[in-house]
C-alpha cells in the first residue's frame, strides 16, 4: 500500500514582506516564481481532493498566497489514443505498406518504417459483434499496454517493393526497447465532463459506458469529477497548448485542443460545464510510461479501447484560479442520457442532471425510480496519480509550464450533415 504524503504549507519560502506586496497585485504569482519554488524544493502542493478543505480553513486569500500548485488527475478509457512507432530499418530495407502488431492492424501510410497504432483497432479476424455481444478480448489498447509493459510482440508487414526498399515481407519480434521512438499521440483525452448513460428500452444494451440493463435498472458515468483536470480549470486559464502533463508516468504535454473540443456550452453559475465541453490532445514518450497506468480495455458488445492515467498541475497564479480548483463533486452536474434511443438517434434529450456526489453514492433517483450506479472512471487511480504528481512537484522534478496558446473557449461542436453533392 502506497502512503500519500501531505506536506503542509510550513515550508513556505516567501518572506512575509514579499507576500504582502504580491497580495495586492492581480497576478499574484508568475509561472517563473512558482517554478523557482518548485526547483528549490519549497513549493506547496495540494491535490484537487485536498484543496477545498484547506481553503475553507485558511480562507481563499491566504491559501492563494501559500499554495503554488494544485494537482488534478483522471484515469479512464480514452478511445482517441494511440502511438507512433519507428522500427528502424531491416536489411534489406522494407517500405511497409501494410503492417500488423500481434495481428492488430496499424496505419502504415506514412514513412517507410513508421506506423500509427490506434487504441480501438480490433485484432485481425476478431468476430466483433457477429455473435452479439462480442467479447473484444484483445486489440490496439492491449497492444499498447503490452508494449509499455515491455512484452515481446510480433511485427508482420508487407510491401509492394521499390528499388531502394526491395523487401516485400517481414516477420520479426520486438520490445519497446528495440524501437527508435514510441510516442503516444492522443487526439482526444480528458473530456471535461461526460454523459451518465441509462437504458430506457426493454432489452439489455452494451455501450462504451458498459452494460446497461433494461428499464433504467443501472446507470454508468465516466469522470473523476472534482479531481478531473478541466473541471478544475473550467475556462482553460492555465491549461492550454504546451502545458506539461503527467501522462501515465511520462512527462508529456498538451499539443493541441482535443478533437471535439467545444468550450461554448451550458455551464453552471460557477462556470462548470454541464456536458462534455473541453478536451485535450496529449503526447508523451511511451518509454517513460508506467504499465499500471496504460491498460487495455475490453467493452462487451462495443469494442476495445485504452484506459490512461493523466495528471495535470494547475499553477495557482491568483485567487480566482484557486477558487475554481475548489470545485466539489456536489457542484458538478452531468447529463443523464438514454443510450437505447436518444444517444444513437442524437435527439439531444437530457432526462435530468445529477451531481457527481449523487453518482458516487452508488444510487441516483430518476423520475421517482432508484437506479444503481457504476463508474468507468477510477477515482482511486486518479487520486493515486494526483498524489504521485504532487510528490514529483514537491521533489522539484516536475515544473509547470506557461501555455504557448490558449484552448478556444467559444468553439461549438458541429454535426456531420448528410447531404447531396
Amino acid at each position, binding site marked *: 500500500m502506497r502512503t500519500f504524503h501531505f506536506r503542509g504549507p510550513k515550508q513556505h519560502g516567501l518572506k512575509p514582506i514579499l507576500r504582502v506586496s504580491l497580495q495586492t497585485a492581480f497576478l499574484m504569482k508568475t509561472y517563473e516564481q512558482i517554478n523557482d519554488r518548485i526547483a528549490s524544493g519549497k513549493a506547496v502542493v495540494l491535490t484537487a481532493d485536498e484543496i477545498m478543505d484547506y481553503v475553507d480553513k485558511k480562507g481563499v486569500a491566504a491559501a492563494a498566497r501559500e499554495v503554488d500548485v494544485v494537482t488534478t488527475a483522471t*484515469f*479512464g*478509457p480514452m478511445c482517441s489514443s494511440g502511438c507512433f512507432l519507428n522500427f528502424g530499418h531491416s536489411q534489406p530495407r522494407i517500405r511497409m505498406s501494410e503492417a500488423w502488431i500481434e495481428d492488430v492492424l496499424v496505419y502504415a501510410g506514412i514513412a517507410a518504417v513508421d506506423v500509427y497504432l490506434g487504441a480501438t483497432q480490433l485484432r485481425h479476424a476478431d468476430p466483433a459483434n457477429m455473435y452479439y455481444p462480442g467479447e473484444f*478480448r484483445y486489440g490496439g489498447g492491449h497492444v499498447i499496454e503490452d508494449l509499455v509493459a515491455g512484452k515481446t510482440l510480433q511485427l508482420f508487414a508487407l510491401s509492394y517493393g521499390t528499388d531502394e526498399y526491395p523487401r516485400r515481407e517481414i516477420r520479426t519480434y520486438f520490445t519497446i526497447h528495440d524501437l527508435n521512438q514510441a510516442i503516444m499521440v492522443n487526439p482526444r483525452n480528458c473530456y471535461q465532463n461526460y454523459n451518465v448513460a441509462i437504458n430506457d428500452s426493454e432489452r439489455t444494451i452494451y455501450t462504451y459506458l*458498459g*452494460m446497461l440493463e433494461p428499464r433504467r435498472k*443501472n446507470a*454508468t458515468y465516466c469522470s473523476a469529477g472534482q479531481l478531473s483536470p478541466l473541471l478544475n480549470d473550467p475556462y482553460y486559464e492555465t491549461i492550454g497548448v504546451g502545458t506539461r502533463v503527467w501522462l501515465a508516468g511520462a512527462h508529456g504535454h498538451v499539443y493541441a485542443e482535443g478533437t471535439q473540443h467545444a468550450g461554448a456550452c451550458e455551464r453552471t453559475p460557477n462556470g462548470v460545464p454541464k456536458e462534455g465541453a473541453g478536451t485535450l490532445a496529449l503526447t508523451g514518450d511511451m518509454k517513460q510510461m508506467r504499465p499500471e497506468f496504460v*491498460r*487495455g*480495455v*475490453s*467493452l*462487451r458488445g462495443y469494442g476495445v*479501447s485504452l*484506459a490512461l492515467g493523466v495528471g495535470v498541475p494547475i499553477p495557482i497564479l491568483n485567487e480566482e484560479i484557486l477558487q475554481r480548483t475548489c470545485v466539489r463533486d456536489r457542484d458538478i452536474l452531468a447529463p443523464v442520457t438514454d443510450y437505447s434511443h436518444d444517444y444513437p438517434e442524437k435527439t439531444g434529450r437530457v432526462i435530468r442532471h445529477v451531481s457527481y456526489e449523487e453518482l*458516487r453514492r*452508488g444510487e441516483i433517483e430518476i423520475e421517482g425510480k432508484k437506479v*444503481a*450506479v*457504476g*463508474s*468507468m*472512471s*477510477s*477515482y*482511486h*487511480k486518479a*487520486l493515486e496519480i494526483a498524489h504521485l504528481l504532487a510528490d514529483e512537484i514537491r521533489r522539484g522534478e516536475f515544473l509547470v509550464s506557461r501555455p504557448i496558446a490558449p484552448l478556444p473557449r467559444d468553439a461549438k461542436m458541429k454535426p456531420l450533415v448528410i447531404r447531396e453533392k
Partner: protein
Amino acid sequence: MSQMITQKLMLFFPKCECEKPIIYHLVKDHNLIVNVFRAKVTPEEEGYLVLDVTGTEEDIQGAMDFLRTFNVTINHTGKGVSWDEHRCTHCGQCVPHCPTGALHFADPATRQVAFDDGECIECLACIRVCPFNACASTF
C-alpha cells in the same frame, strides 16, 4: 448441541468419480445442509462443484474424511471465481452488478474496490462486465 458452522468449498472430481452420488451422502450420512452455487462437468467428464456446507464441526470433519476416501480435491481457499487485485483498476463498473456486495468499495474516500470471496455466489456477472479482465472463473 454443537454450534452449526458454514464453510465454502470447491471440489474437483476427476473422471472416475463423477458418477458417484457424493452430495447425497453429504446430506444423508453427514447431516450437512448443502447449498450448491455452481457445478460443471467438462467434456472430459471431470467435475467442478462450488458449494456451502452447513453443519456441526464434527459432521463437517466427518464429511471431509468421507470425501478424502475418493479421489476428490477439496479446495477451502481458492474458489471458482477469482479477482486479480493487480488487474483491477478500481473503477467500480462491477459494483452495481454484484448481487451480494462481494465486490464493493472498501473505503468511500479512496474508492478502492475489494472482493470478499465469502460473499460471492458465483453468478459470474463481474466477468461479463469487467473491462479490465480482473475477474475470472476457474472453470
